[in-house]
């Protein structure tokens, strides 16, 4: 039986002292993440109520002059740009250093990461809060926000790159100290995730630095919206894997142990992460099936590669389910499926993440429809899409991250979780609320209801939509209750949780089939990175060349809110 991580964690020295700085960096990132989610999530409830013509926006007009769409901009930016990025940076700092069992190569760089991101966040927040950046989180030009909105968001991305640098340096040091050893799986996964992110954000960086920022500063007179969208989605699709992979890290390397079992296969886990690195980026044009100015042929090629990503997703599904089965049977479970009941459903970290996985399975099935080229015409820009990504980023990612905090926050704060029952109630209410919310959002999308629209005020709101919209609000209110339970429990844990004498150990799962059962080439990075770059060039160069060679850069900015 091989251990996942090469390092040994039970040791004489005080672990909490060794990782004190890393703990603080992780904690700082987590605090920003969850404050952002609290504000962002609140607007979700506002939106669902507005759909039912309960308009809470008028009551906060002085602080929210841009009303529904300013709220929606905040919901998108805070939830999927700020919450996700901060959580992931904090989480991967933790995972990387603990799995290598050594501190960050540069702690100053670790704080610089947080610092640069936070300067960016503050810059972006100012115009957002002043209704000068009500352009939603996708900021499609030629709608033009204040320049500091774009500069701020760019700094958040640039800051996040510093963790990639730091993890690579840490990896080098670890390698020098452990010649011939296989990279511990969690560290391998953290490196793949950050490398994929750094590679894919080249798109948004180019969009910002070359097109948008000079134009928003008035240095150039016009822009090119389709070119901008193409660069945006170069990052915009892989960003969903940047959100998901950190949850997968937990599902693969911790949840099996939390469930009382072992990871089924370490080599298969590496294969799936390598495939995500290779296949996440050259498929971004599946968000542009309905765009003019992009050729059908390349849309179809991206559709083909998109279906290809289904392969590592199914590998993950299998590996994780097999690990859960391993856990269920280890706990005395029997039968074809009855072992499910033997799993430790009373453990909040475990239960929360398994519930997140269950809703994710539905999200994955729906995603196939979105990706399916011509089927996409039925659902594109309808509320089906919102229904879909609340299952993926809104649940698989968000609920998993919450589940992680049920053990990570006690570890960082050296205090026990305040209430196990509140945590379990939180997980189940999110699960039920989201299932209702998402089901009806999907359904309303099939009935033709558009997304990104203040439905309650739309003249075309019809009786059929009206019949199902109340269920959207019911789901939202249940999730609101869930959020209250979550935040109350967290605040009480930090302030009133029972103090722990010692930092608890990080519980990595062992693997039935360990790292040494796989070939050594699975532990490499460069060959996969080269393949990824080659595929990106093949799938993007023709479209980019066509767009750039015909661009007139003459579309002026507009403020239409």
């Amino acid at each position: 039986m091989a251990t996942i991580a090469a390092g040994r964690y039970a040791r004489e020295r005080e672990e909490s002292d060794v990782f004190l700085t890393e703990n603080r960096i992780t904690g700082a990132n987590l605090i920003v993440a969850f404050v952002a989610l609290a504000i962002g999530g609140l607007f979700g409830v506002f939106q669902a109520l507005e759909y039912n013509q309960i308009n809470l926006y008028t009551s906060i007009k002085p602080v929210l002059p841009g009303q529904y769409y300013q709220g929606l901009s905040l919901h998108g930016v805070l939830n999927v740009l700020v919450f996700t990025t901060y959580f992931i940076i904090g989480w991967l700092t933790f995972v990387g250093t603990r799995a290598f069992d050594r501190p960050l190569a540069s702690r100053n760089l670790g704080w610089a990461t947080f610092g640069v991101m936070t300067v960016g966040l503050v810059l972006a927040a100012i115009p957002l809060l002043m209704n000068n950046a009500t352009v939603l989180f996708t900021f499609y030009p030629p709608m033009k926000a204040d320049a500091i909105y774009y500069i701020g968001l760019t700094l958040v991305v640039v800051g996040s790159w510093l963790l990639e640098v730091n993890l690579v340096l840490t990896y080098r040091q670890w390698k020098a100290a452990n010649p011939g050893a296989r990279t511990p799986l969690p560290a391998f996964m953290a490196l793949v995730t950050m490398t994929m992110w750094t590679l894919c954000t080249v798109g948004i960086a180019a969009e910002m630095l070359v097109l948008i920022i000079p134009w928003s500063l008035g240095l150039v007179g016009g822009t090119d919206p389709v070119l901008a969208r193409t660069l945006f989605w170069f990052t915009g699709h892989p960003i969903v894997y940047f959100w998901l992979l950190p949850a997968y890290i937990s599902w693969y390397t911790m949840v099996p142990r939390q469930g009382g079992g072992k990871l089924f296969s370490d080599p298969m886990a590496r294969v799936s992460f390598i495939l995500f690195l290779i296949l996440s980026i050259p498929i971004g044009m599946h968000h542009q099936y309905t765009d003019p100015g992009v050729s059908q042929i390349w849309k179809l090629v991206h559709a083909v590669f998109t279906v290809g990503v289904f392969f590592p997703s199914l590998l993950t599904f299998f590996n994780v389910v097999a690990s859960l089965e391993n856990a269920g049977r280890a706990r005395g479970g029997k039968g074809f499926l009855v072992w499910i009941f033997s799993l430790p459903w009373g453990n909040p970290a475990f239960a929360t993440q398994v519930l997140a996985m269950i809703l994710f399975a539905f999200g994955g099935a729906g995603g196939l429809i979105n990706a399916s080229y011509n089927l996409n015409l039925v659902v594109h820009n309808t509320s089906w899409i919102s229904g879909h990504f609340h299952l993926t980023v809104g649940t698989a990612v968000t609920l998993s991250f919450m589940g992680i905090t049920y053990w990570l926050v006690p570890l960082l704060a050296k205090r026990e979780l305040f209430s196990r029952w509140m945590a379990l109630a939180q997980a189940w209410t999110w699960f039920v609320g989201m299932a209702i919310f998402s089901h009806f959002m999907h359904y309303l999308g099939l009935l033709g209801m558009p997304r990104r629209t203040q439905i309650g005020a739309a003249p075309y709101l019809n009786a059929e939509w009206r019949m199902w919209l109340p269920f959207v609000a019911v789901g939202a209110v249940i999730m609101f209750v869930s959020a209250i339970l979550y935040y109350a429990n967290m605040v009480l844990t930090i302030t009133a949780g029972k103090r722990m004498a010692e930092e608890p150990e990080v519980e990595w799962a062992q693997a039935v089939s360990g790292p040494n059962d796989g070939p050594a080439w699975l532990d490499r990075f460069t060959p996969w990175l080269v393949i990824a770059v080659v595929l990106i060039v093949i799938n993007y160069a023709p479209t980019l060349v066509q767009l750039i060679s015909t661009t007139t850069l003459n579309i002026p900015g507009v403020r239409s809110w």
Partner: protein
Amino acid sequence: MGNNKFMHYAFELAWILPSVAVPVAILVAITLTAFAVGIRVPDVAGRVDPKALSRTPPFDQPGVKELAPGRYEVAMIAQVFAFTPGEIRVKAGSEVTFEMTSRDVIHGVKISNSPVNVMVVPGQISRVTAKFDKPGEYLILCHEYCGSGHHVMAGRLIVE
């Protein structure tokens, strides 16, 4: 242990094969519908200067043109927060080609109960064709956020 290992690999394989087969089957289905049935997504249809629409055919005369019995061409301009023309009339069973562009920001066009679903972008021409068999009123709505009045941006297509 040896036998155990073997079972382990067999188990892995039993999953890997369908994991390949399922995506391949989906791909075949997509490609077939794209080419055999002819459901297409928009293609490159050329650029246009949004400041010169009044001088650029067909956008100099937005409206419905009957090219031949049962064949129409609609030149449509989107701008905050309306479509021109806002009302389109065609005969049942006809094939309608839409040529669309935007005068300002990005809009979207979705026509209810039809495959028309396309982004309308300043500087670009969006061309889509659809057949309308069933008489009735179809809702044309803007489905991309385009500003504070986005939710009132809509039109009608009447099939007679």
